[in-house]
């Protein structure tokens, strides 16, 4: 055997060394006589011990320069004399799992190839990529090269002066891109230019299959090509990266394949992934969605398991239904019931047929604390294998169908019948890394906004809980949480042990009714269960039963189809008019969230260059966030002469742009709307992928500066207004042409003076909606009815009922917004006397909407004479407007509309 020396590079944010590392090193030992481990950043004492036991030498260095500089330091540390004693140098790192096949297999194959160095994996040539995130590369585009995660340097090259020079002259590696640029791309170029040949163990079969086959084709690589290692990226990259090229099953299938067909212990992979990766990514990458069959049980009935159900019963009406669910559990299941009043205790004792332990608890908060407190010891010390946590659910309010659907969906998935229960147990049995199973988050009707899981108002509280419980789990706000939506779920006791080990008291929870349906500790705990399970080393999964899966596929397909319509660039407003996108729930997706005061999607600009091969994502650059409150200025560095440049002022919503210009090479370039229209200096880009052309004339290079006022628009009412405006404007132009030379009357002057309205002070939310009541002595603040400032959500829908028992209004005034200007549409005022008329006091009408340029917007509701208003319901869509640019656009709309109307009749 050749005499080999290996350098293994390691990095972990927390410095922890998981089991896959020593396994890796021990396997490396079979092909390498000497192993040096280099660690960037930190390593725990336990980790250090592992390295000292499984390698010949180990050292830690500061976290700088990634693997490339670590290799450099290791090589210089070993010294050329020592390296001279070896035939081959192996350079590898921690970002790959394996080997799943004996390494000799690969090494003996590679010995037959007559090359100077070889790699495990390679990246294929890509003509579309001409730079590395804006950094120049030594070729016109990306060529084939080996990845730095496993590379073997042969004797000739190892002992060459060129190899020595490469490392000694290596520039400073500032970031990941530098590392890839110098450690991989330049590496290939430098040594190829020096006449060294190379190859990779990965074949060319996957060339052109997709982007990054070395990640996305992982299954094929290990099955067809018997590659001994898999990149960790196969499991931790965002789901979009794999969805973009296929069905997404490879990461899951790869793990299954390794488990079944090789000696490699996949738990080593699980362990590391669970510790280091956000659960949402793992859930998607491993496709942890299970279907529990309702008609057949696949559970091996012979094995003994201890099952418990912990359930809070509150509604007498639900008792029969809950009894039915209870009967679905295996015979030996232990039931632990809580009730919160004497009456219910009596009823349950009388009526519930299931044998159960029943505890009376304070009538305070009803499900989260009932799960955590009274039967704490049963969870911690009961010796159960799996525990199902339940509580009854009853919707009584108007439109209860939605709530009922939610409840039904949860119960059928978690404990629909005996087969479902047994199949859930079977999921646990077959997947020892799953510790927590709950129904998938609902998304129908008015809760559409939590589709795929959402932190809503709870991220900060979950973070606080994580600190309190000293949980070592990465929490990232932009990754959706996996959660126990509805608080009905299954868990292994050891997965939730930490949460139960804490001595909760009822006082830790707010008293019911809380009056708030989100943002409290109980809501945070719903989302925290999977976090605590992850900390204990477990995955969380979602479950549905098989008949639900029919609904689920239908619903998800429906949603996607509708979204596809939007993304294909159809005018959103047209779709609405066509009634093809008529789901109210769905209309909220364009704007994302439930509260107007926060969480509108921040928009980012992006710039595309045509360097002669057309626009490409590879050479595009991020242009940073767009802020409606400030002028946009951004500098871009061109990597070479660009023929054409396109600027996208927003990434996922429409926008208005004014005063847009760019300068490059000292020359100023105008900008024009590519997929919108421009009137009066304002570009209206009314689609989801707004684009502007930068009119460069002759090719430019150097630094390009883009300046513009950009206001993203999140509300679809703008589409209908501005589309109409465009039509009117065209018609007006025609009319004006026709009337050219004739005496045309003055247009109306629009009352629009920013100073008067103090637009600077306007905010992005409407503030309170106020109904002023005049009982004969004028309006007064004292009797005014004010709604909660958060009344208006992202749906922009305001709905409020008022009743007048002691007062008799003679006049009513409704102020839809008091912190900004607004557009109001679809307003209806219904009273005990029927529909009431209203009129706009200080705004104007525009295409069926009311527009207010003031933060003291007012409607007068006309009280019919002689009638007595005792009840009143106001419903309206209220869209806040706070940007001068939008006001100017709306003012322009009005001028055009008025002028057109006048001229039309002239």
């Amino acid at each position: 055997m050749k005499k080999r020396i290996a350098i293994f590079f390691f990095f972990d944010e927390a410095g922890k060394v998981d089991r896959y590392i020593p396994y890796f090193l021990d396997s490396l030992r079979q092909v390498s006589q000497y192993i040096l481990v280099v660690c960037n950043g930190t390593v725990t004492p336990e980790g250090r011990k592992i390295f000292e036991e499984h390698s010949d030498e180990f050292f830690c260095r500061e976290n700088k320069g990634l693997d490339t500089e670590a290799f450099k330091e290791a090589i210089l540390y070993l010294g050329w004399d020592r390296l001279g004693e070896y035939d081959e140098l192996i350079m590898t790192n921690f970002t790959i799992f394996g080997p799943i096949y004996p390494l000799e297999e690969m090494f003996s194959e590679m010995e037959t190839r007559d090359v100077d160095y070889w790699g495990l994996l390679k990246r294929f040539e890509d003509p579309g990529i001409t730079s590395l995130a804006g950094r120049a590369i030594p070729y016109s585009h990306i060529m084939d090269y080996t990845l730095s995660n496993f590379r073997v340097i042969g004797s000739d090259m190892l002992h060459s002066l060129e190899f020595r020079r490469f490392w000694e002259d290596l520039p400073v590696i500032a970031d990941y891109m530098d590392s890839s640029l110098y450690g991989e791309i330049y590496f290939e170029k430098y040594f190829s230019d020096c006449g060294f040949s190379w190859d990779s163990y990965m074949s060319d079969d996957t060339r052109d299959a997709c982007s990054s086959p070395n990640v996305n084709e992982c299954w094929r690589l290990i099955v067809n090509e018997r590659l001994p290692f898999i990149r960790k990226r196969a499991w931790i990259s965002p789901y979009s990266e794999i969805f973009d090229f296929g069905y997404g099953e490879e990461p899951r299938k790869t793990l299954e394949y390794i488990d079944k067909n090789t000696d490699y212990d996949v738990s080593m992979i699980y362990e590391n992934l669970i510790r280091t990766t956000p659960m949402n990514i793992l859930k998607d990458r491993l496709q942890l969605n299970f279907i529990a069959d309702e008609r057949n049980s696949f559970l091996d009935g012979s094995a003994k398991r201890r099952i418990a159900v912990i359930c809070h019963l509150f509604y007498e009406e639900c008792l029969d239904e809950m009894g039915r669910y209870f009967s679905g559990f295996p015979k030996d299941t232990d039931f632990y019931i809580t009730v919160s009043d004497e009456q219910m205790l009596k009823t349950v004792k009388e009526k519930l047929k299931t044998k159960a332990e029943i505890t009376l608890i304070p009538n305070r908060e009803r499900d989260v604390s009932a799960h955590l407190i009274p039967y704490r010891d049963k969870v911690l010390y009961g010796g159960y294998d799996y525990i199902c946590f339940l509580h009854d659910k009853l919707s009584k309010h108007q439109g209860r169908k939605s709530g009922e659907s939610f409840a039904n969906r949860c119960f059928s998935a978690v404990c629909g019948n005996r087969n479902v229960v047994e199949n859930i147990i079977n999921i646990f049995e077959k997947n020892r890394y799953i510790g927590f199973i709950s129904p998938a988050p609902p998304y129908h009707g008015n809760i559409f906004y939590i589709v795929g899981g959402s932190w809503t108002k709870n991220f900060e509280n979950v973070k606080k809980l994580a600190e309190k419980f000293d949980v070592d789990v990465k929490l990232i706000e932009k990754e959706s949480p996996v959660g126990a939506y509805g608080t009905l779920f299954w868990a292994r006791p050891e997965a939730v042990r930490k949460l139960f080990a804490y001595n909760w008291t009822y006082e830790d929870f707010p008293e019911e009714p809380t009056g708030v349906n989100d943002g409290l500790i109980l809501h945070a705990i719903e989302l925290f269960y999977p976090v605590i399970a992850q900390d204990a080393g477990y995955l969380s999964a979602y479950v549905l039963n098989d008949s639900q899966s029919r609904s689920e596929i239908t619903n998800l397909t429906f949603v996607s189809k509708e979204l596809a319509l939007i993304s294909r660039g159809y005018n959103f407003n047209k779709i609405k008019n066509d009634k093809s996108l008529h789901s109210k729930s769905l209309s909220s997706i364009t704007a994302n969230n439930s509260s107007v005061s926060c969480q509108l999607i921040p928009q980012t600009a992006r710039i595309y260059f045509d360097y002669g091969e057309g626009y490409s994502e590879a050479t595009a650059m991020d242009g940073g966030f767009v802020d409606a409150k400030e002028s946009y200025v951004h500098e871009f560095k061109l990597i070479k002469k660009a023929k054409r440049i396109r600027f996208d002022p927003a990434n996922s919503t429409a926008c208005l742009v004014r005063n847009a210009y760019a300068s490059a090479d000292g020359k100023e370039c105008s900008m024009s709307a590519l997929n919108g229209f421009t009137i009066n200096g304002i570009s209206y880009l009314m689609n989801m992928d707004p684009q502007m052309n930068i009119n460069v004339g002759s090719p430019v290079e150097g630094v390009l500066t883009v300046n513009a006022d950009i206001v993203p628009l999140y509300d679809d009412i703008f589409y209908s207004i501005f589309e109409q405006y465009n039509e009117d404007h065209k018609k007006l132009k025609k009319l004006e042409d026709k009337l050219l030379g004739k005496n045309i009357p003055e247009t109306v002057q629009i009352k629009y003076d920013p100073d008067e309205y103090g637009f600077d002070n306007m905010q992005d939310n409407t503030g309170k909606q106020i109904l002023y009541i005049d009982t004969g002595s004028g309006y007064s603040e004292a009797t005014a009815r004010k709604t909660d400032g958060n009344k208006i959500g992202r749906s922009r829908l305001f709905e409020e009922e008022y009743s007048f028992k002691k007062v008799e209004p003679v006049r009513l005034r409704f102020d839809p917004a008091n912190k900004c200007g607004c557009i109001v549409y679809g307003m209806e005022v219904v009273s005990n006397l029927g529909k009431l008329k209203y009129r706009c006091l200080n705004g104007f009408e525009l295409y069926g909407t009311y527009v207010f340029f003031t933060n003291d917007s007012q409607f007068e509701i006309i009280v019919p004479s002689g009638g007595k208003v005792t009840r009143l319901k106001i419903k309206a869509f209220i869209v806040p407007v706070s940007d001068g640019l939008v006001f100017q656009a709306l003012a322009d709309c009005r001028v055009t509309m008025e002028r057109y109307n006048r001229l039309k009749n002239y």
Partner: protein
Amino acid sequence: MKRLCVFFFYDHQGIVDEYVEVLLEGMKKSVDRFVIVCNGLLKPEGRRIFRKFTDTVIVRENKGLDVWAYKTAIDFLGWEEICSYDEFIMMNHTICGPLFPFGDMFTEMDGSDVDFWGITMYYGGGCTRPTAWPDNGYEYVQDHIQSHFIAVRSHMLKSHEFQKYWSNIPEINSYSDSVSFHESVFTRRFSDMGFTYRCYIDCDDVSDYDVYPLMFNSHVLIRDKKCPIIKRKRNVLPFVHVRFHDSYYGLRDMTDAIEECTHYDMDLVYKNTLRTSSLYDYQRGTVLGFISSEKDNVTCKPVDKKKTGIILNVNNYEYFKYFKEYLNHKLSGFNLIVIAGKDNDVGQYLGSDVNIVASYDLENSGQLFTVIEEQSDNYEYLFILSFNTLKNHCNKSFDYNTLLMEFDSFFNSINQINSVTDILENNKVLGLLVPPLPVLGFNPYDYSVYRTQNFKRVMQYSEYIEVMNSEENHYHFPANNIFACKTKAVKGFAESLEKCFGFTNGLSYDLLLPLYVQSKGYYSARVMTEYNAKMYTAMLEELLYTKGVLK
């Protein structure tokens, strides 16, 4: 365990005080080889002391502070030699001990499986890095083992990381550099690399309220944790530390704890700090001052009248006459030495039982010190009662009261005389007792003006006798030449003045005397009666308020 200890030493005069010897002596049994690195100067006597412990004494230029001293030792020894030891200790002269045998510490730590260890910890306490520190890559101050004692075990010694640390050590030009680049990051850096550590004295409980337990809660460490060391400069802390960190009782509690729980002699520390600090820092930091109870029921050993001489220095005969009654009974049995003008018959005013052993004709203002010189061999203690015209002379009533206050500090009663002698006898390093500074009169700040006027001469003298001095050095001095002293502390004063200035007459003796006493290795302190203390407190507070210091 085979141990190698690099001991870093620095002294501005190159003098090796006894506390260093005691410290090294304490380590000797546990250490196989010492390497002593000294920055700057080392006197031959010092080298002789160090030679008792090792052949390897390296004196290098005063650059790079402790860090580069260790680096020098490491380069000198080479890694092969260093790695032949099980433990490599980097220790410096800023600690004193052992209060408890170092052997106990080494035995306990031998049983601890760690890669490096120290005695005490400094806690970051969530503080951001002070602006004075250069950027060391950490936003916050890290918890760290204090660099006055760090032991590194074989496993870490042999590591590439530790050796690389020393080959890449940055330039160190100041104390801040040293703390920022070395002391405060050493622990974090190596523990991040997976090396385990521990502190012999576990202060995690104290750290809840004190980031620097060794300095500010030393008594807890000594009493509860048997901490073998204290910080050398504990009694001469800069005022800012006293003001913001120290419990008012820190030093007292520490000295009490040392006295009750250990056999360590604090005078070793005092001797060093007296020499290496300015007298003012020393007096303030050590909270020097003695209050003698006026009450007769507190009895002291009667003064040995043979060992004690009293000098009556009568410049102003009128003053003397006023005080004749006051003095009368108290002087009986003492040996009196009288300096007075030719025409002034002091004897006639004194009782018949006084024993005037020597009389001098008053010649000049410096004569007092030539007399002291002459008489110093005959006595152990001298009380000097000068009847000089006051510097803050105001009117007779005021003058008499001022003098009374000063005399009272020594002569309030026979018991007071006993008490003062007792204080002198019991405080080995105490050389001079001065009365409270008279702060009233026309201008209560006379004395600072007086200092300023004479400052040049004071500095000249300080340099000559090699004591630390500066403009901020507001030490106690006997403003009206009324004081008590040990004769061995003042002997040679007149000669040194002569040598320094070439003359003795007309000098500001009162300002120079405490410095001379300091150079002889003695400190000076105030003494006052209980009533004086009350009065003094009342007057000082008044002045603090009216001068706007307190509001």
